[in-house]
Structures are given as C-alpha cells and as structure tokens.
C-alpha cells in the first residue's frame, strides 16, 4: 500500500488535533496517527483549558465539549512548613458567559476534540506508533508506523508528538532536551461527592477554583504545585525542574515524595480529606522557554505544541500555545497549497513568521530570562516563602509585644537571612525577568 496524503499529523493532543482539524476543514486529505488506544489515553495535563485558543478553531465548542467547571476563583499560596500566605481573587464576573477558562480531564477532552477532527474529514488511526520519519534526499516524505506495510507518504508531516519529541530527535532536527529545560510533574486525581467539593471550596454547581502553590513544598527545588477542582474530583500535582532531581542536589526529594508531602501539608490535607485516588500520572513539561525552542520547520516538516517547547511556564500555559501553533502550522500548509507552492523549507518558513507574530513567541520572549534566573536563585523557593510566612505569623500573633517592635523584628529577619544588596538584587532580577 502506497497511499498518499496531503498531510500527516503525528499525535492527537491539542496541537495535533488543532492542526488536523484546520487542514481537514479546508478540504485537505489528512491522516492523523495516534499511539494510544484512543486520543487522550497517553496525554496528561493539569488541566486548565483556556477558551480563546480553542474558540479560534471551534467557536461553538461549549455546546458539547466535556468541560468540568469554569474557574471563578484563583488562589496563589506561598507556603512554608506549617502555614501559607495567600492571595485569592474571586469575581462573579467569571460567572458571565462566555467563560474564560475551565478545568477539563484530558482523556475525555482529547477524545471529544478528536471526534471533531474526524467529523471534519480527517482519517484517524489509533494504536499505532510512528517509529521514524521517512526521508528522501534530505526532505521528509512520510512516516514509518509499527504496523505491517506501515509506510505512509504525504507532502508534509506535522510533528505533534509531545514533549519527548522522539521523531525530530531521531531525525537529527534537534538534540536531546536538557534536564534544566524540562520539569517533571506528578499528579493524582482524587474523587469526592460533588456537594462535598462545592461546600469545601465555597462554590456552586459548575463553578471551580484554582490553587497555585509555591514554597517549602518543593524543598528548594525550582517548581510549583497545583490543586484544581473538577466536577466530582480534584487534581493535585507538583512539578520541579528535572535538573534539581540530580544527585548533586542534597535537598532533592523523589517526585512521589514531594506529592505525598504536599498532600499532608496542613493547608492542603483538609481539602482532600476522605477522597478516593483513582489515577497517578507523571509527565514532562518543556519549561526552557524562548531560548530552548528548536527549529520548527524544514523540508516537508513542521513542529507544533510541546514537541516544539511551546510552554509559557510563568503563566502555566501550554495547551493554548499547542492549539495555536497547531492551527498556524495548518494555515501555513493550506495557504501554500492554494498558492501552488511545494512544502519546501522556504515555503514553510511562513509558519515561523506566523508563530513569531503571535502571542506565543511574544510571551515566551517576554519571560526569556526567567528560567535561568529561577534556576540560579533558589531563595525564591526557600528563604522568601519562609520569611513571608514568618512575617505574617509575627504580625498576626497578639502576645503583648508592641507593633513597632514586631515590624522591626520582621525587617531584621529579612536582612539577617538576605543582605540588603541581596534583597534589592532579587527584586531587580525578578522585575527584569518579567517586565
């Protein structure tokens, strides 16, 4: 069988589905290959869905997409061992339609998205792993699958194969991802009755809460933790930069130990009490940002989503960048075909132009120095959370000591653990990395 397609998309996550949907909708003959039993069965995410990126692809997605809860409250906690200092933002505005973001379960959401892709006319093959790209004279001409007679050919191959980016790596398009540019996250899904969840988080039906956490819970490793409310379950997870799990870090903790300690933290434990754990997941997140985005186009190929490192770690955004890059790749291919051009590197360069002009690269550029600064300054994850919590404890403990003395005590606690120059330097570094 030497069947030919206009385009092959490897992977049926958000980026692959966005690409396949957009191309199929435009009438292209699209083959999509997924290694899981069904789309979503290999995919892991927190997961928050940002409406905007999906709206640009499927405007009426809210009619039948499996959405858990729309977010009405955002909590940011800085924790030490026993306490947390937090800010909460809750607004009834977030209850007005159309909602801006939702919690989702990826196994269900990806399956729904994939049905849209097939409805649009793409051919989907599941339970099939692509082993490597087929090359001819330096250009990608198709893929080899792990099936008998598994060679399929296309004018262009879109690599939406996820963070491990196996195919591009094997083809030599880019080297192995560096341990400092990727985070390992582990999470569990914990079930509880809907009413209990709503009472515990002070929300009504369909309303949800996001808690982002930072501090002692990562034991000085660069990372964050999260807790999201789904319909009748909670997702709780924690992730740290892979490099910090190395032997040379004396304070390291194993990923499942971090998760277990998080679940036992006095601020978290009451929220998850009595829940039933039904799945344990692990996944890598490409967090290197701007400088770690590889070459994303070439002779007959394009890279989209996590495979291209498109994650804005500072804002916990990934799936929206994935959908956007997938859509932009598809639009590049569609326009090239209309203009009667071949799928050469020169033609496909337009994809990079589009990505650069979008919020995707603009945001990654804005935070380009952040990964490096956090990596070299772990006081943001150790000393500061402790200091802030100690300050709050001092201030709110009524014990006969006068307030002026308390304030003096707080000031000197900051200065004794971090010099004035150090404090100002940290403030400057953070400002510079996020301005």
């Amino acid at each position, binding site marked *: 069988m030497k069947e030919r397609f206009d385009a092959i998309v490897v992977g049926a996550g958000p980026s692959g589905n966005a690409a396949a949907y957009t191309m199929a909708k435009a009438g292209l003959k699209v083959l999509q290959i997924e290694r899981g039993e069904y789309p979503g069965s290999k995919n892991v995410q927190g997961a928050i869905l940002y409406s905007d990126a999906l709206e640009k692809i499927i405007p009426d997605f809210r009619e039948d997409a499996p959405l858990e809860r729309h977010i009405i409250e955002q909590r940011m906690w800085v924790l030490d061992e026993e306490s947390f200092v937090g800010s909460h933002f809750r607004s009834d505005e977030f209850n007005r339609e159309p909602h801006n973001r939702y919690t989702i379960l990826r196994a269900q959401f990806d399956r729904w998205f994939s049905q849209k892709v097939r409805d649009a006319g793409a051919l989907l093959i599941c*339970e099939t792993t692509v082993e490597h790209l087929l090359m001819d004279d330096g250009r990608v001409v198709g893929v080899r699958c792990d099936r008998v007679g598994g060679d399929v050919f296309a004018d262009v191959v879109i690599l939406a194969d996820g963070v*491990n980016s196996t195919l591009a790596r094997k083809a030599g398009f880019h080297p*192995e991802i560096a341990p400092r540019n990727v985070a390992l996250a*582990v999470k569990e899904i914990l079930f509880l009755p809907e009413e209990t969840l709503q009472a515990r988080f002070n929300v009504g039906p369909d309303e949800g809460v996001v808690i982002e956490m930072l501090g002692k819970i990562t034991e000085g490793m660069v990372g964050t933790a999260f807790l999201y409310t789904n319909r009748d379950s909670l997702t709780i997870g924690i992730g740290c930069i*892979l490099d910090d799990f190395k*032997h040379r870090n004396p304070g390291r903790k194993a990923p*499942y130990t971090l998760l277990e300690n998080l679940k036992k933290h006095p601020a978290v434990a009451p929220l998850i009490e009595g829940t039933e*754990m039904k*799945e*344990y997941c692990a996944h890598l997140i490409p967090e290197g940002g701007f400088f770690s985005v590889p070459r994303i186009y070439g002779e007959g190929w394009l890279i989209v989503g996590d495979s291209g490192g498109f994650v804005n770690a500072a804002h916990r955004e990934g799936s929206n960048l994935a959908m956007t890059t997938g859509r932009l790749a598809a639009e590049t291919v569609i326009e090239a075909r209309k203009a009667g051009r071949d799928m050469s590197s020169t033609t496909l360069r337009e994809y990079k132009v589009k990505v650069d002009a979008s919020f995707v690269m603009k945001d990654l550029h804005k935070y380009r120095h952040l990964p490096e600064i956090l990596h070299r300054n772990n006081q943001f994850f150790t000393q500061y959370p402790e200091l802030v919590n100690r300050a709050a404890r001092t201030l709110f403990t009524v014990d006969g000591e006068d307030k002026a003395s308390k304030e003096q005590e707080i000031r000197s606690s900051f200065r004794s653990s971090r010099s004035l120059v150090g404090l100002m330097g940290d403030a400057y570094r953070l400002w510079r990395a996020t301005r």
Partner: protein
Amino acid sequence: MTTAAVNVEEKLFQNRYKVDHGRPHIQIRDASICSTQCATRDCTYICPASCYKLEGNGAVTLITDGCLECGSCRIICTEHTNVQWEYPRGGHGILFKFG
C-alpha cells in the same frame, strides 16, 4: 518537613496498563556502565513509577511494566546516555483514564 513513606506500587495499582509482555520499550544499553561507571544512578531516584531499582551489588535493574512514559530517565542520564528509550508499540503501555 518530615518525609512521608510512599508506596508507589499502590499508586500504580490504580492505573490501567496494557503491558507488551516480553517487549520492554525501554532498555539499559550497557548494564555494566550503571554498576561500574555511574556514581549517581539518578534514574533510580527520579523514575516516578520506581521502574529502576538499585540492587545491593550496585547493579541497576529495570522493569517497565508500570512505566508512565514520561521520559525522565532518558533525559537525566546525561553523562552516559545509557537509556534506550522508545514509546511502546501502538496501543500498549499506560492507558490514562483521566489524564
């Protein structure tokens, strides 16, 4: 912070797998490198599914049945690049119910 004891196997028991018996998708390229040349054996520490075990004699053994297919073991093995890492054959391996 006190460190909680964690039973990883108990966690994995909640997951759904279709194990490709006799065809592990990850292999240690040269076992002697792990036991004689690698001082850190970070794979045994990082694997979130505890697939890698450090044996008493310094050898590293790998059983991929509980693998969550994250890729950490391959990436963290920077010094010796001793992990031959592939995805499982189509349809095999971890099958997330919720993801």
